[in-house]
């Protein structure tokens, strides 16, 4: 038997495999497919105080080894979430991470107050490229980011506080801002800004022009960002970006991620997260390693 469990702050995960926000709904769809309780944790679709309609279609565009998306954080809003989604989630025997976003510090704080203790962790979304206001403003402004995290931290007493960064900032500096402001953990990367053009109409594919790139195309960027983050801070780092296989996951762990998130891969094969857990076990057994923690941050440069 090998040990796959890892610790993120005060949270113990059965294994380091987490599903990424926006690729897993609120868990209901996947519960029809596989046993959610086997996962390390699940991250829910980004949640805002008020419901959001999301962006007009088209919302996705395939690119070489990747997808551009412009979903625009369509979600049910806090009130319906608490009434309709949370009861199902609370029945699960798996740590749940709520991804939250707002246009103002007050909105983030209100969300955190309502969700603190209801879910195991909060992931501050300050890095979505697909919404005009809020979100990424905080993730790219040094002062705003620090103030936001401090304000949310003050009302987050029971849940773990994770901050999710964009790859489009100076990672070393922003990681330190996140740590100094009191975030318990750091997750990265959100999607990479990109665009696509309809050459017949000579118009952007997306109404917002800019969209977010994900998938294996961004994995090398994500790995580099995780590498820079683990060099800069002591809080646990959760890595993500283009992870499709257990081998991809191992690269992130070796670089120093304490856990990883599976996103776009779940669209291609909904069982990816479960297959990665199996793959990690196989790797450890094959290499005669008893504890996954002994490979985390084992990169020799």
């Amino acid at each position, binding site marked *: 038997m090998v040990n796959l469990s890892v610790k993120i702050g005060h949270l113990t995960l059965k294994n380091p495999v987490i599903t990424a926000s926006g690729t897993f709904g609120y868990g209901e769809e996947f519960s029809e497919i596989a046993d959610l309780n086997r996962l390390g944790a699940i991250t829910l679709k980004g949640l805002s105080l008020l419901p959001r309609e999301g962006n007009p279609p088209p919302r996705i565009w*395939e690119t070489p080894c990747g*997808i551009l998306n412009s979903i625009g954080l369509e979600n049910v809003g806090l009130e319906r979430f608490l009434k309709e989604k949370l009861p199902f989630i609370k029945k699960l025997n798996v740590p749940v991470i709520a991804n939250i976003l707002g246009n103002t510090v007050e909105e983030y704080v209100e969300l955190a107050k309502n969700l603190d203790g209801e879910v195991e962790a909060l992931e501050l979304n300050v890095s979505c490229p697909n919404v005009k206001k809020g979100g990424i403003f905080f993730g790219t402004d040094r002062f705003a980011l620090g103030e936001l995290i401090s304000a949310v931290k003050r009302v987050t007493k029971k849940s773990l506080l994770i901050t999710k960064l964009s790859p489009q900032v100076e990672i070393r500096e922003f990681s330190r801002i996140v740590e100094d402001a009191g975030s318990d953990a750091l997750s990265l990367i959100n999607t990479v800004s990109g665009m696509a053009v309809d050459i017949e109409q000579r118009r952007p594919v997306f109404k917002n022009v800019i969209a977010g790139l994900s*998938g294996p195309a961004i994995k090398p960027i994500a790995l580099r960002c995780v590498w820079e983050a683990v060099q800069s801070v002591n809080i646990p780092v959760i890595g993500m970006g283009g992870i499709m296989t257990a081998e991809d996951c191992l690269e992130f762990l070796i670089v120093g991620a304490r856990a990883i998130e599976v996103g776009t891969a779940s669209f291609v094969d909904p069982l990816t997260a479960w297959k990665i857990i199996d793959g990690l076990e196989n790797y450890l057994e094959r290499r005669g390693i008893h504890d996954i923690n002994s490979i985390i941050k084992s990169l020799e440069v």
Partner: protein
Amino acid sequence: MTFFTSTILENTPLTHDIFKLTIKPHSEIKPPLPGQFFMLQAGEGFDPLLKRPFSLYDMNGPELKFLYRIRGRGTAMLSQKRPGQIISITGPFGRPYPEPEKTEKVLIVAGGMGIASLNYLIKILLGKGQTIRLLYGARTSEEIGLIDLNPERLIKVISTDDGSFGEKATVVELFENTIKEDLPDVIYACGPKAVLRAVDQRAKALGIKAFLSVEERMACGIGVCLGCVIKTEGGYRRVCREGPIFREGEIIW
């Protein structure tokens, strides 16, 4: 099982750009219903990354059959696959076409590749003793063989864009002419947006029940990416989950 691998039994061209793909799943799958779809891997590895949605065209025992036109890189790659090769698939997904009452007069409107989704419905309904009126608009006579037109109780009017078979008309023109003479109780339609919109608007105006099968770019097929939404009276709805079948008056075109 929602995710499964299958062996390709045949992948043959029926016209210069339309292929029929027959596969045999390696494991037992949830029995699909007419109007549901599967997501098929088009290439190898992660390029292209996403699977492609295809409606079920026919079933023969455990064998699943799909009909597709080469439209882009994904379908071009799919057409290169050979019998014996393994393909990974997810599904069945989406809400099926609801069945009509035995006594209801059924009109089916198929525009172009819309026939792929309606073929299996026709087969099932004929098997249950239903009489069906089919309006089928194809591009050319080449495409007439995509569906078995021989069954009794299948009353059909066929048109082609170039007049090489049947009337030279669009399926929308056939539809407009048909409902002038004889109103159905329920309409099933699949095809290009222009066809669905015309059927939708007429059905709504006449107060006739209609089930429209729509298509959108899709990433996951299971309802989590929110990528395939269309605008409806009730807000954005997922084609993969609340669809692909929508009612008359529901969609905002």
